[in-house]
């Protein structure tokens, strides 16, 4: 509806120019809508996850968090803060379960189970919703779900009490299922001290970070140590599997002294009982003879030893329980002298306590290594299950027959050999000690190791518990696996046996 009146002398009139100006103003508003779309849709992810954006944290702590449970009882809690982050995480039992739960801090984020199941615990996991579509529309939010762990509180308690104020770790597994019964690391820390945002929280965190004893290091899962003689269990099993040894009681062809191939260095033994040629495998295990097991490892050969080690979880960089364990190492390229050293758990061989517990568990479970699992089930807040963990086979590390032979070797170690401190009345215990030297010129305090399993006397079932203990940097005057680590393993095994 253009009005007749034109502009001055043939120029467009106000009807035309006004229309153009109006179009311009509307284009400005269209530009706004376009920019809003860019920010709200296309840059949403990037902006939401910017570390300076507090919204994710605000949302995470806007409701009481779901809990992590041990034997049905929560080991975590939430308390109202009255601040911007409405609830803060509490850990009623201080540091006892820090190696299991990890921490949930408003300032420093979430780790381990707190981190892996953050969506579930904070209520945003879509599996919590009964009507996912309706919840998306109504923006409804579910109360946080719970994570039920496989931990046996008695075993956990025994592990921590046994470690005491020494630096070390314990991993205990139920061999038939892979359920992790204890996971302890000392010195431990209280995740509740830095759960909030106050200055005190910040100071507690800074203190923990600066502590030279690294209390926040999860030694059971995230730290590897040379396994020393405990690795001889792997070598013995490999020798039996490969047919290098067919009868554990028959003399082997192991020479004494055993000179490392291609060198002039003889492999030394800790006890003179080993200083004889042609010892049987049983005698070699009872006395932990380096010369014999080093020789046997070389006889098995690199491919056989690598395959054997990998059967228990060595060289696996993605061992998720579901917290990822550090990669335990067994070199795949070595000369024969290095292989000999590796076969007795030295050279580059390094293992987490978790993987050494898998070694003992594999032997106990007739050669089948089960995938270690820390979580039993995920549930809604009311306890209805969302996900149940089922036992998973990790690898068949050896035949049942070989496992039976290795079990007997380990029993002999405990009954007659270096592992006597692990004996339990009324139970059959198999174990292997280890004392691994480390440091420049072996100057460091040795690591004291013990791996073992136990079952009630007369039971034909798979032993209910396998355990690995490492004590690092103990102040004890004489550091040996049998002296320091075996009693801790015994306490943990006893706790499990008693609760069955």
């Amino acid at each position, binding site marked *: *509806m253009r*009005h007749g*009146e034109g*502009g*001055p*002398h043939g*120029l*467009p*009139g*106000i*009807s*035309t*120019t*006004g*229309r*153009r*100006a*109006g179009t*311009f*103003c*509307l284009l*400005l*508003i269209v*530009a*706004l*809508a376009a*920019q*809003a*779309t860019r*920010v*709200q*849709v296309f*840059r*949403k992810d*990037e*902006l*939401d996850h*910017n*570390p*300076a*954006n*507090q*919204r994710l944290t*605000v949302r995470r702590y806007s409701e009481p968090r779901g809990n992590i449970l041990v034997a049905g009882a929560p080991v975590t809690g939430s308390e109202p803060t009255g601040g911007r982050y409405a609830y803060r995480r509490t850990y009623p039992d201080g540091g006892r379960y820090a190696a299991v739960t990890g921490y949930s801090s408003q300032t420093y984020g979430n780790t381990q189970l707190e981190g892996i199941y953050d969506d579930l615990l904070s209520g945003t996991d879509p599996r919590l919703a009964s009507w996912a579509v309706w919840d998306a*529309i109504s*923006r409804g939010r579910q109360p946080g779900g719970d994570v039920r762990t496989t931990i046996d509180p008695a075993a956990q308690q025994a592990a921590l009490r046994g470690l005491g104020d020494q630096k070390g770790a314990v991993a205990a597994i139920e061999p038939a299922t892979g359920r992790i019964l204890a996971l302890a690391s000392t010195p431990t820390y209280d995740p509740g001290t830095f759960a909030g945002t106050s200055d005190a929280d910040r100071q507690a965190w800074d203190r923990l970070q600066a502590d030279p004893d690294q209390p926040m290091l999860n030694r059971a899962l995230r730290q590897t140590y040379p396994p020393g003689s405990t690795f001889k269990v792997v070598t013995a099993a490999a020798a039996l599997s490969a047919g290098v040894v067919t009868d554990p009681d028959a003399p082997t062809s192991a020479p004494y002294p055993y000179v490392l191939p291609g060198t002039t260095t003889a492999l030394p033994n800790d006890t003179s009982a080993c200083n004889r040629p042609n010892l049987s495998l049983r005698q070699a295990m009872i006395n932990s003879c380096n010369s014999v097991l080093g020789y046997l490892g070389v006889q098995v050969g690199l491919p056989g030893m690598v395959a054997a080690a990998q059967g228990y979880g060595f060289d696996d960089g993605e061992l998720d329980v579901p917290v990822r364990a550090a990669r335990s190492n067994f070199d795949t390229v070595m000369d024969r002298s290095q292989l000999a050293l590796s076969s007795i758990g030295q050279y580059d061989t390094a293992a987490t306590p978790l993987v050494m517990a898998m070694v003992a568990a594999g032997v106990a479970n007739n050669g089948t290594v089960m995938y270690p699992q820390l979580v039993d089930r995920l549930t809604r807040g009311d306890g209805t299950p969302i996900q149940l963990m089922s036992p998973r086979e990790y690898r068949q590390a050896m035949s049942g027959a070989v496992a039976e032979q290795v079990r007997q070797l380990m029993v002999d170690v405990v009954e007659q050999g270096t592992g006597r401190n692990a004996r339990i009345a009324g139970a059959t215990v198999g174990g292997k000690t280890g004392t691994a030297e480390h440091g420049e010129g072996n100057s460091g305090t040795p690591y004291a190791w013990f791996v073992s399993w136990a079952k009630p006397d007369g039971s034909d079932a798979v032993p209910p518990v396998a355990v690995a203990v490492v004590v690092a940097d103990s102040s004890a005057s004489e550091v040996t696996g049998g002296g320091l680590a075996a009693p801790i393993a015994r306490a943990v095994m006893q706790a499990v046996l008693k609760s069955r």
Partner: protein
Amino acid sequence: MASPSATARGAVPARPVRTRRNTELALVLAAVLIAVFGYAEVGLNLDGEVPRGAAGYGAALGVLALLAHGAVRWRAPYADPLPLPIAVLLNGIGLVAIYRLDRATPRSAAAPAQLLWSALGVGLFIAVVLLLRDHRVLQRYAYLGALVALVLLVLPVLFPPVYGSRIWITLGPFSFQPGEFAKILLAVFFAAYLAVHRDTLALTGRRIWKVRLPLGRVLGPVLLIWAAFVGVMVLETDLGTSLLFFGLFVIMLYVATARSGWIAIGLLLAAVAAVGVGRLSPHVHSRVTDWLHPLGSIAAGQGANQIAQSLFAFAWGGMLGTGLGLGQSVLIGFAAKSDFILATLGEELGLVGLVAVLLLYALLVSRGFRTGIALRDPFGRLLAIGLAAIVGLQVFVVASGVLDLIPLTGMTLPFIAQGGSSVVTNWIIVALLVRMSDTARRPPPEEPA
């Protein structure tokens, strides 16, 4: 529904004039209802119950809206039925947003004052609709108005600065921004001057290369007054208003004279001025830096600045928003209720809600332009277009600032942002548009047969 008898007479079929007053009433009531819903949603989301003040809030908004509608029905029956409901809805949304932000900042409640200012705005709307029978009266007072506006603009220099800008006049507990009122007076002045001088401006003057420069004595006065306005605002470091005055001038000059060459010159001068000011003023320089690198302060370890916080808020809202009351836009901090209030809408109503609000503005602006085009007198046409342009430009300047499309200049979002002067001014603008649309749509008096 053409009457057959009219066709029989061979004249243009006379369409019965539809006043659309009932449409307006329905829309006004719908607008009040939507705002009350929003108010209830804030309470439900924050406390799990409809807030106790909901009935009072709805009643207050409803009474104001109905009074305004009554005035229109009585004295401007042919008026455009859209501007009033849009204004009611925007004002209602603004009150909800401020109430919502008050909940997050318990020590500085702003919603009650905003409701009072809104009431004053509606009162002035009614006054304008009832008392201003013919908008052409304003033409007579154009120069006087411009003078008053200039005085108002200069006055804040005598008052203490607020957040670095001397744009406030404080009288006891009351404070207002004269720049807000001045823009109406400036639009009236431009419309009056250009309506008279548009032919001379368009056609006379020296021709240099391809551009015809107008005579100094014609362009001079208007340029002088405009420069005075912009100059004062620049000195008071109110960059948003300077930008608005500049845009208003260029648009009205173009609409009046159809000389697009001047737009080019204007933009060129503006660019030069912008670069110059950006170089000289550290205040402006930092705004430009924030605009180019909104997340730069985070990388520098200084935390998120306001623009970054604003972008976080928008992004968190995503498509559908968090729901009213459930956002965290209060993290933006200072000016969350005024300059940055759009971020709250973006976060809590999402892109969908934000676009809906932008559409309301677009509709309001386009109805203003339509009124201008439909009017017969050049002054009215230019005034309606100027007023509509003010709304459009202001929305753009403030929204694109908080959305990081242009550097932040600091302005209030019409009707929604906290700020008494702003709400009152925008109600007057809508009143003028309603008044003029009544004139534009009124059927011509029956010619005697």
